[in-house]
């Protein structure tokens, strides 16, 4: 039977502007988590849980790392949790990224707080001997995080919207600078995903989606995304958050 998990906060760091890296420990979660899955975190005093992607998995120490942006009341509150405190979580939830050993070169395209789930994926791809290229987009210089970590995985291009670091513009501006790849994996705001899937039309890829959630387990139909124009749909919390590009309509 599934259970709510009691996760212990191990570390909390502000690694970029309003961007928190939090390490949580829990045996079950660390043993079973897959890249692209998320945790559904209960923040005290809030009626709804917050879905946050798993950014890194340390199976030896039973640690999971999440990165989140201080946005509204819930994430601001979450940022105030201190080591030793516990967080009630559901998960690891949803379907993560699937990859095959046959893949040769994979392109990771992340925007802002959509970047974290790509990190653990990149690590696993590299471990399997798959070549990794990353294009990471941030608002501005002070929002940049994990650049070195991605550099360790492979060639990494950074863009900022205001040009204060790396190239200026959007991730799609630099896609033509990227070498050949056979698959892409992308996560970020919907407008970015729309632009990316359009720009990379014809390529096979996977995208990770966000939507406001109720239950986070597939029961309430809050987080659906259409698969066709005839009423077909998927639930992001259960069937996703990762989908093949041609599986859903953005």
């Amino acid at each position, binding site marked *: 039977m599934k259970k709510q998990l009691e996760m212990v906060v191990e570390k909390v760091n502000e690694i970029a502007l309003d961007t928190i890296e939090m390490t949580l420990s829990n045996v079950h979660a660390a043993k079973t988590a897959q890249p692209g899955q998320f945790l559904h975190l209960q923040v005290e005093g809030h*009626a*709804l849980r917050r879905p946050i992607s798993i950014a890194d998995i340390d199976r030896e120490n039973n640690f999971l790392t999440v990165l989140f942006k201080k946005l509204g009341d*819930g994430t601001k509150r979450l940022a105030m949790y201190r080591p030793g405190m516990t967080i009630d979580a559901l998960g690891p939830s949803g379907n993560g990224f699937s990859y095959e050993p046959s893949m040769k070169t994979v392109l990771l395209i992340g925007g802002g707080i959509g970047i974290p789930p790509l990190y653990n994926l990149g690590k696993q791809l590299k471990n399997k001997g798959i070549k990794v290229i990353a294009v990471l987009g941030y608002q501005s210089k002070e929002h940049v995080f994990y650049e070195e970590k991605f550099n360790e995985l492979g060639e990494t291009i950074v863009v900022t919207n205001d040009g204060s670091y790396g190239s200026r513009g959007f991730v799609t501006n630099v896609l033509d600078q990227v070498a050949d790849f056979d698959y892409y994996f992308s996560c970020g705001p919907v407008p970015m995903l729309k632009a990316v899937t359009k720009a990379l039309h014809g390529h096979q890829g996977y995208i990770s989606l966000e939507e406001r*959630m109720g239950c986070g387990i*597939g*029961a*309430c139909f*809050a*987080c659906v995304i259409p698969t066709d124009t005839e009423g077909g749909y998927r639930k992001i919390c259960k069937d996703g958050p990762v989908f093949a590009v041609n599986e859903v309509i953005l």
Partner: protein
Amino acid sequence: MIDLTMDLPGLNLKNPIMPASGCFGFGREYSEFYDLSRLGAVIMKAATGDVRYGNNTPRVAETSSGMLNAIGLQNPGVEKIIENEVPFLANYAIPIIANVAGSTLEEYVKVALAFNKTESVNALELNISCPNVKEGGIQFGTDPDMAATVTEKVKEASNLPVYVKLSPNVSDIVGMAKAVEKAGADGLSMINTLTGMQIHLETKKPLLANKTGGLSGQAIKPIAIRMIYEVKQHVTIPIIGMGGISTAEDVLEFLLAGASAVAVGTANFQNPCVCPEIIDALPRTLEQYGFQSVLDAVGKGYEA
């Protein structure tokens, strides 16, 4: 031994706790958290005549001690529900209540008729109160005459007991309750959500794609208690109470107000095991306040 059982039209409940319609899907997801046969009963997500996709997203928003939803009755249609969902729930030894929705009288009747086909459904919950669906601009749930008519027609069509689910968005809840009782309702279910809205400051637009949504959760509990308390004094049919329940103490408050059983909605999202946890806590809570059985407590808020 504290007696948790409750006998209601069509429903022999071993305890008075059931998940509320729309907050539990068709039970599959929660069956991965606990054995559904622990529940008093289960109320399925709304069924309509045909498949519906529902509203655009975002469909939910968080509020202080509550949430707004505008799912828009997404469901595979009554036939698919009977074919694919009811058999799954029938594996558990608990009464099944089907939530019946529609945009027209004919659709309500069609759905009710369809459920006659299956042996596994024990009662209907007639959802005349979904705030996101209207006919001719008037909601079935806010006009006593329309509510009575749809109750009558569904009673005629169905061979099951019918619990009419009332909307709280009315000036006169007692009038609504009396109208549907007179029209033949076997029970009441109350309350559905209150119509609300949140405006997103970033976009300067209503956050929900549907603009308005239904407010549920602890925020609305005082309204639910008041309405049940008022209605209980004017009807003889039993009430399934709901609105903001998340603890055994909340359940007792609803029983005292006049509910004979309760449904738990939004709280499932915070804690998927909330229903069995309430069931476990209920005997001790009843005992602590001097009750030997659920029946003992029903409506006691008037007498003391």
